[in-house]
């Protein structure tokens, strides 16, 4: 056997606030052969990162490895002295951290950091190490491999930093590489590039690796075996094919179920809304500038009464700013927002209490959206009193009703947010918005900070609430499958522009806007081999000349795989309807897009939505 790693009976404890050691990993056992990629998968708090770090004999502050053994090669890592551990780290076992932006030292050049471990361990001379780094940069498909090393971390993008960190880990040819959620902080379209680069070097170099992630679909592309963790215990340890096809453990099955986008229950709840064109919110020509920078440009949007409109886009697309503009938090510089035909003031100051009541904002992060000094009863009671003048027993009764509505026990009314779990806090956050009895709820990434299973439950709750109360949603997300699962209409944003808008059906089948297509194709699918076969961002971009008039050109020009020389870099794209019903901002006709996208997509979509 080529066994490289054997972990047996590993136990790790964390010290809690009372100073008592609480076990967070209870006796983990697994092993790993040379050239294998093993995934540790689980939700937050499952102990996956803790286990991965203990392979380097490292425990984060507050944690302690209390028992078991971790053999890497011939040595028991847990029995090594500090000096011996330092010799192992970066040489025998190397680490790739989750957030490269934080894990790179801001005041040292990239090259210095990439070759540091080779110099510390005396594996290579500085010159050799630099040559090897450049070689790795090239393998990882980094731009300007000869020169990127001279830059500082803040001068390169997040996706590039993540790949540079892989170079940093591989510079010493370690026996084992640990990848700790290396793509979690990235946008999907960047994630796919990074995954592809990782996969390539891992395969070419025959690297033995442990891949830590919460995302089964990502892991399915990378790993040969998957270890499923929950609350510090191994639930299942099987080859990837088996986990995906025939999971043994019920927990694995529930994880799989939560990831698959629950297909919408047909047009059932859409009926009421689409019956008549009852427009609740009408946004026209919206523009927002911060200084000279336009963060939103010429955005039109209609929300019908009782409808759910999804807005998707990556970071920097302006999707959150759009919600803030509707709420009055981001003053608009042009355009108007009508609520039931009545214009909403561009700032908070000009709005009436009734207008405030009708539009409620639910923030992404319930940790910071609930005042830690107030009890849940105070938090929910305030809007009741503020909008409806409810006091005393009536208010208490209504608070209990609201808690029931979001499926929380009435007993938590006296507690403070710090005593609740993430999912509970997000439910309180929703209940507060419902207390106003609003017409429109602006949901800003409300499931993003939550674990998959918890997020799926919140999504389910949102769907139920809409059916019961007939409230409208503007649902903002970076995740197209979440949006597809909840919304009637979908808007795609890219760097402040609305690039595509249409009903949910239009987003099932090509043609799409090229960006939507990229976004859809970048979402990892739960099947092995997806990464190799998916069409997204593969191959180079068609070459184009220097853009002539930069002002009104297509925002997606720099990344568009179907851009046309002489057209896209010369004139502004028109907004027009394509087959399938959606409206796009693109020079291409629906037929052209369909031709370009169809061959890859249709097959895949059948697979997903069958």
């Amino acid at each position: 056997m080529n066994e490289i790693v054997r972990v047996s009976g590993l136990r790790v404890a964390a010290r809690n606030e009372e100073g008592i050691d609480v076990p967070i990993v209870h006796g983990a056992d697994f092993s790993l052969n040379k050239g294998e990629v093993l995934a540790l998968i689980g939700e937050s708090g499952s102990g996956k990162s803790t286990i991965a770090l203990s392979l380097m004999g490292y425990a984060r502050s507050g944690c302690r490895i209390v028992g078991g053994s971790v053999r890497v090669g011939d040595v028991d890592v847990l029995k090594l002295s500090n000096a011996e551990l330092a010799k192992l780290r970066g040489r025998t076992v190397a680490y790739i951290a989750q957030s490269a932006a934080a894990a790179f030292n801001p005041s040292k050049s990239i090259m210095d950091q990439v070759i540091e471990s080779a110099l510390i361990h005396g594996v290579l001379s500085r010159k050799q190490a630099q040559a090897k780094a450049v070689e790795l940069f090239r393998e990882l498909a980094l731009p300007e491999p000869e020169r990127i090393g001279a830059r500082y971390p803040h001068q390169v993008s997040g996706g590039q930093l993540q790949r540079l960190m892989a170079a940093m880990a591989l510079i010493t040819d370690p026996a084992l590489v640990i990848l700790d959620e290396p793509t979690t902080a990235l946008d999907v379209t960047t994630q796919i590039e990074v995954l592809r680069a990782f996969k390539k070097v891992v395969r070419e170099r025959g690297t033995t690796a442990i891949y830590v992630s919460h995302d089964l679909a990502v892991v399915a592309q990378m790993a040969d075996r998957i270890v499923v963790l929950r609350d510090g215990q191994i639930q299942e340890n099987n080859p990837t094919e088996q986990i995906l096809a025939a999971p043994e453990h019920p927990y694995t099955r529930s994880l799989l179920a939560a990831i698959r986008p629950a297909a919408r229950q047909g047009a059932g709840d859409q009926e009421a809304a689409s019956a008549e064109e009852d427009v609740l919110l009408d946004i026209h020509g919206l523009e927002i500038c911060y200084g000279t920078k336009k963060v939103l440009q010429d955005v039109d949007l209609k929300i019908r009464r009782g409808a759910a409109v999804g807005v998707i886009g990556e970071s920097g697309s302006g999707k959150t700013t759009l919600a803030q503009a509707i709420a009055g938090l981001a003053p608009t510089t042009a355009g108007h927002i009508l609520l039931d035909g009545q214009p909403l003031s561009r700032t908070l100051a000009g709005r009436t209490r009734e207008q405030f009541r009708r539009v409620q904002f639910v923030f992404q992060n319930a940790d910071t959206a609930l005042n830690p000094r107030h009890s849940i009863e105070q938090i929910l009671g305030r809007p009741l009193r503020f909008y409806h003048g409810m006091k005393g027993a009536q208010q208490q009764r209504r608070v209990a009703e609201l808690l029931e509505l979001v499926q929380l026990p009435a007993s938590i009314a006296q507690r403070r947010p710090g005593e609740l779990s993430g999912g509970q806090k997000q439910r309180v956050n929703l209940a507060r918005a419902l207390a106003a009895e609003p017409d429109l709820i602006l949901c800003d990434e409300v499931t993003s900070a939550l674990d998959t299973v918890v997020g799926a439950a919140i999504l389910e709750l949102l769907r139920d609430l809409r059916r019961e109360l007939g409230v409208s949603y503007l649902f903002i997300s970076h995740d197209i499958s979440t949006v597809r699962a909840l919304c009637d209409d979908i808007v795609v944003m890219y760097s402040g522009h609305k690039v595509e808008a249409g009903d949910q059906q239009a987003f099932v089948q090509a043609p799409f806007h090229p960006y939507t297509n990229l976004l859809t194709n970048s979402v990892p699918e739960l099947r092995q081999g997806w990464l190799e076969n998916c069409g997204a961002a593969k191959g180079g971009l068609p070459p184009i000349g220097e853009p002539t008039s930069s002002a009104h050109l297509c925002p997606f020009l720099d990344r568009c795989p179907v851009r046309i020389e002489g057209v896209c870099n010369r004139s502004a794209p028109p907004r027009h309807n394509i087959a399938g019903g959606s409206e796009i901002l693109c020079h291409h006709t629906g037929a052209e897009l369909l031709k370009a996208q169809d061959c890859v997509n249709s097959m895949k979509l059948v697979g997903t939505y069958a």
Partner: protein
Amino acid sequence: MKPNSISPKASIGSGKDNALKQDGANEPVRTRRRRLSLSVGGVIGLLIVTFWALMAVAGPLFAPHDANAMISDGYFGPLSLEFPLGTDYLGRDILSRLLHGAPFTIGVALAATALACTAGVVLALVAAASGGWVDALISRTQDALIAIPNKIFALLMVASFGSSVPLLLLMAAFAYMPGSFRIARAVAVNVMTMDFVQVARTRGEAMPYIIFIEVLPNMLRPVMTDFGLRFVYVVLLLSAMSFLGLGVQPPDADWGSLVRENIEGLWAGAPAVLAPAVAIATLTMGVNLLIDSFGGRSKREMEK
């Protein structure tokens, strides 16, 4: 806006609940006990502070002798049963003088600190809530005041207005207000950007509600720590002024004055000069120990 890309770095509201993130529906509500746990140093600090707080109120009642009576023949007398802390340069009982000085040293400093912190916090809230030019104006002025070192400012005030007790109080309050303002403003601006404040704004709440109900309760802890630190500075400043002969004037005497009037006793190693100095040191050290055990001090120090 991807999961995990946000690190709630803010000092408040970051519930550490990654151990248990089950969904809320059927999960039993977790309770977290909040205990005020003090280290050994903290307990000692608390005892000292309590003791001096009592003395500040009731000290003069415990005095065994008349503080101004020259009752002993010996100048700079040693420790004895009759005069537990010896006698001073005029043969007065040091213990009694010390106890009579306690209200001056502790009381004046406490009042000055309270004034400084209240003014600082109020100005900070006004600045943070208004923003724009109001904020700029207040901040610039406070920055200018901070640029005059405290002791130099004290000398300037005494030179202009003399050194009566009310003036000393005002002077100390003025000298330490800018520092308090700075910290309170930093905290307030930080809290103002929190999502729960944004929620209140989009609910249509008026500024007073936001300031008093949403923001202020979240500022209490840092402001209280700052209060303790500032109290120590004020005690040291007032004592230093008295030591220079520019603070509390005879016949009243605070602890700084006691050190000054008995400085000649230093050559003889008389307890008269050491006792009041040690009293000041224990008071300030007690407060420091107490603050230290609450933590978060080093951060405050960075902001002066």
